[in-house]
């Protein structure tokens, strides 16, 4: 171990570069996974903070934006035994009123329904919605557009439901980052704006204690094109939409692994090349090929473990720095032990793979190399 450690310390600059070659990919992996996990968590929070037992939406909708639950279906669901109350929700994007590019999400809510209550504690100014000509601004949207309480906003470019301008009556900072990007208007306004006046994208169901399964079965049997999901199931289903993120992370991991391996191979090959006589001497005094391989792979392993540890630290520090770039907690990260395990494992695998070929080359050094003096 002392021999391995001192070999690395003997060539500090090269070892440091190799360390960095392992640390950077590990850091990237930690950052990507933590942010991806943060996004999943925010979806979960969205459901949890709604307080609903079930969420109803179109069974075949690939995205909630395409889900349609008709008013008559809503009326029937309300009458199901065990349903305490419902909250309707819809959504549409609009052009940023203060910029020529970019969109802002509009969330439709009904002031008298229960889901509106969750914004009570999130208010940073003003009050909740009461009328159709009012709007609540998420903290980021308010800042980005430069609106303040009392301002009037032309949201649609043309009057909707007879309303040309909407008055800002409140601002909020939600625990759900993407809600802060948007604005909340009366659900009827969005219904009219999208031209489907009798449909919603999502219905939150609040059920009596113990009635959730019964209500779920009743909704799904009466409306085969709808699905009623528990909060956890809902999160899982739509978190699956973020599978692209997992694919992206996988690609980045593979690229990082290849780059890291090449870095370690290069460094270790140079090291082996410079130490041919030393290795020949070790072989001459009776060291087996396996022992020589062990030394080189051991060096790779040690450097990758150190690089892996450093990568975890850089990953967290880098992620925090990145989050700082996005105001109002727009981006959040969740650090899980499994993320650190994955990152560290990638580092260790990098070192092991990267050191194996140089180790094999070191094994091929003949003892007679010890006798070459030129």
């Amino acid at each position, binding site marked *: 171990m002392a021999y391995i450690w001192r070999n690395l310390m003997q060539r500090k600059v090269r070892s440091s570069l190799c360390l960095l070659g392992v640390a950077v990919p590990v850091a990237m992996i930690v950052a990507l996974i933590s942010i991806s996990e943060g996004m999943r968590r925010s979806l979960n929070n969205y459901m949890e903070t709604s307080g609903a037992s079930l969420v109803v939406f179109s069974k075949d909708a690939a995205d909630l934006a395409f889900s349609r639950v008709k008013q008559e279906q809503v009326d029937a669901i309300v009458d199901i035994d065990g349903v305490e109350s419902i909250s309707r929700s819809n959504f549409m994007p609009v052009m940023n009123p203060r910029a020529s590019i970019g969109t802002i999400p509009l969330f439709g809510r009904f002031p008298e329904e229960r889901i509106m209550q969750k914004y009570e504690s999130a208010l940073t100014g003003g009050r909740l919605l009461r009328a159709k000509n009012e709007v609540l601004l998420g903290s980021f949207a308010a800042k980005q557009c430069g609106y303040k309480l009392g301002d009037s906003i032309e949201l649609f470019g043309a009057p909707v439901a007879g309303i040309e301008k909407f008055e800002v009556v409140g601002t909020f900072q939600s625990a759900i980052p993407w809600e802060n990007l948007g604005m909340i208007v009366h659900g009827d306004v969005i219904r009219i704006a999208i031209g489907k006046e009798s449909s919603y994208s999502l219905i939150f169901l609040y059920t009596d204690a113990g009635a959730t399964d019964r209500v779920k079965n009743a909704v799904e049997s009466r409306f085969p094109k709808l699905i009623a999901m528990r909060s956890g199931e809902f999160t899982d289903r739509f978190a699956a939409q973020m599978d692209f993120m997992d694919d992206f992370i996988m690609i980045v991991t593979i690229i990082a692994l290849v780059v890291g391996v090449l870095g370690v191979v290069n460094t270790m090959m140079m090291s082996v090349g410079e130490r041919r006589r030393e290795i020949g*001497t070790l072989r001459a005094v009776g060291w087996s090929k396996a022992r020589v391989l062990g030394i080189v792979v051991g060096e790779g392993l040690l450097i990758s473990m150190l690089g892996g540890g450093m990568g975890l630290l850089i990953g967290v520090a880098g992620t925090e720095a990145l989050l700082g770039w996005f105001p109002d907690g727009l981006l959040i990260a969740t650090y899980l032990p499994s993320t650190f395990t994955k990152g560290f494992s990638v580092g260790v695998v990098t070192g092991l793979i990267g050191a194996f070929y140089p180790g094999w080359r070191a094994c091929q050094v*003949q003892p*007679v190399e010890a*006798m070459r003096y030129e």
Partner: protein
Amino acid sequence: MSDAAVARLSGVSKTFEHGRIVAVDSLDLEVVAGEFIAVTGPSGSGKSTLLNLMGAMDRPTKGEVSIDGELLANAAIMERVRSRKIGFVFQMHNLIPVLTAKQNVVVPLWPHRVSKAERRERATDLLTRVGLADRIDTNVKVLSGGERQRVALARALVTNPRLLLADEPTGNLDTTTGFEVMELMHAMRRQVGSALVLVTHDESICQGADRRFQMRDGRLEQTA
């Protein structure tokens, strides 16, 4: 092969480049226990190749090499023989630069099942005998040339080898230091009972040899 023989070469040849270069040519030699053999000769005469063959570092193209009665028939045997029965002293000392004197001495013991305490004891004993008791934990990079060669001598003897092979051991030392190293080498190998095969250009360090050979064009010619 006599009972006391620690090395025997029978009809050994070594050629390179598909036989175009003959480094060692049909050579027969027997080295008995405790014997001191000196081999001199011009550069390129095949001295180092001879040492490689006797040291189980290389295989002959023809003929057989046995060390302590064991025929060097394959790589595993050669590795074991190098590890247990042969000690090397190289011209350039070939110490591991990142290790201390003591660590260098015990390098040949690492593959063996020798306890840490025993390794330490053997290294301390040998380094004391070569006059480096106060340099045991010193990194070899800061030692002088003579001190390094003494560490290399201690390393060569740490396994109590039957055969000690020395390739120009004083080649990088001044005359006085060279003689000191040679005196130490003889004193210590006698204690261990090792035979010594010395390959050198320097006739002066061949004094006291039981047999002297001149190597020319891959052939050995006994001169004394």
